[in-house]
């Protein structure tokens, strides 16, 4: 069982994760089609701005975003998502394992730093949990499934933190850590976590008022 979790299941999880994402991208392009028309190109020429004007423009633009309505959440959610991706990729332990098996590794952050980043990440998770529990507007649309998703995301970091500090039984915690990571990878393409991929598809490709790009596809 341990061998399966630490060996074959890792490959299976990665294959499901990657094939799942490819499947979702394929489905997305099949379901959407290119718009027959698009907005005419902007006729207003952009004025050249000095560096100071550019900074002032960016700061003023922030007033029209979530930064204005909920600055704390904006910071927490940004930190949460950035650390969620960065910490596992640049973790020393993971890169050593990569080096041992494939002979290649990425640049690694010092362990003391990743330890702090993991803690910050877990604080962000606690913040989200608190919002779900105590804010009436979030509670109004929360189901058990939301807590489960939060647990799936938090579990690899929590067990990883325990394993680094060697709390509880190291082997058990490590096995749970690997299992939690695999569960997360497998669930990403098919659950709410799919917004990891669909955020980019929705905001860049679908024609919408809030598109980051021109958005030339329609459903």
């Amino acid at each position: 069982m341990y061998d399966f979790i630490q060996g074959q299941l890792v490959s299976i999880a990665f294959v499901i994760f990657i094939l799942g994402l490819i499947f979702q991208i394929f489905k997305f392009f099949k379901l959407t089609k290119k718009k027959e028309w698009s907005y005419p190109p902007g006729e207003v020429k952009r004025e050249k701005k000095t560096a100071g004007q550019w900074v002032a423009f960016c700061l003023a633009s922030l007033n029209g975003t979530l930064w204005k309505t909920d600055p704390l959440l904006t910071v927490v959610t940004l930190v949460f998502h950035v650390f969620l991706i960065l910490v596992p990729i640049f973790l020393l332990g993971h890169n050593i394992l990569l080096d041992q098996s494939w002979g290649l590794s990425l640049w690694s952050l010092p362990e003391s730093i990743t330890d702090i980043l993991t803690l910050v990440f877990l604080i962000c998770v606690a913040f989200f949990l608190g919002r779900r529990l105590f804010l009436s507007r979030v509670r109004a649309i929360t189901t058990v499934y939301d807590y489960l998703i939060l647990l799936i995301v938090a579990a690899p970091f929590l067990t990883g933190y325990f394993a680094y500090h060697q709390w509880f039984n190291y082997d058990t915690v490590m096995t749970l850590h690997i299992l939690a990571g695999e569960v997360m990878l497998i669930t990403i393409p098919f659950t709410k976590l799919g917004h990891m991929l669909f955020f980019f598809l929705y905001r860049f490709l679908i024609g919408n008022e809030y598109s980051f790009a021109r958005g030339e596809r329609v459903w």
Partner: protein
Amino acid sequence: MENSKLGQEMKPVDVKKIKEMLNLKKGKMKRYLSHCAHCSLCAESCFLYMAHHKDPQYMPAYKAIHSLGTLYKKKGKVDRKLLTKMKGIVWRNCVLCGRCYCPIGIHIPSMITFARSILRSQEVYPQPDEVSAESWL
């Protein structure tokens, strides 16, 4: 008029028709519904939410989940009572102004519009002579 309205209410719900309609846009709507992170960040973008003292039932996500979301969850097997409840959500609680903002990029107005179409197929829509304490006409 009263009789015809009564007739509408007695008419059984055409589950098959609802299922057919739901399947038409399943790929898009199911993805939208499943990718909603239930973050509630769309709340403040809705003027009705702000005007109703931040009552959660006016939140765009709440409106989409409790109308179209319920229809998909129940696979179209709904009764007229539930459809009437949804009527209030999609017609009274939302005016389809299209100002709702979703960080993930989910287009909420298209979900409400689709829910309206399904309700209309079952002849559930606001009547011109409708008189109620919560009348919006």
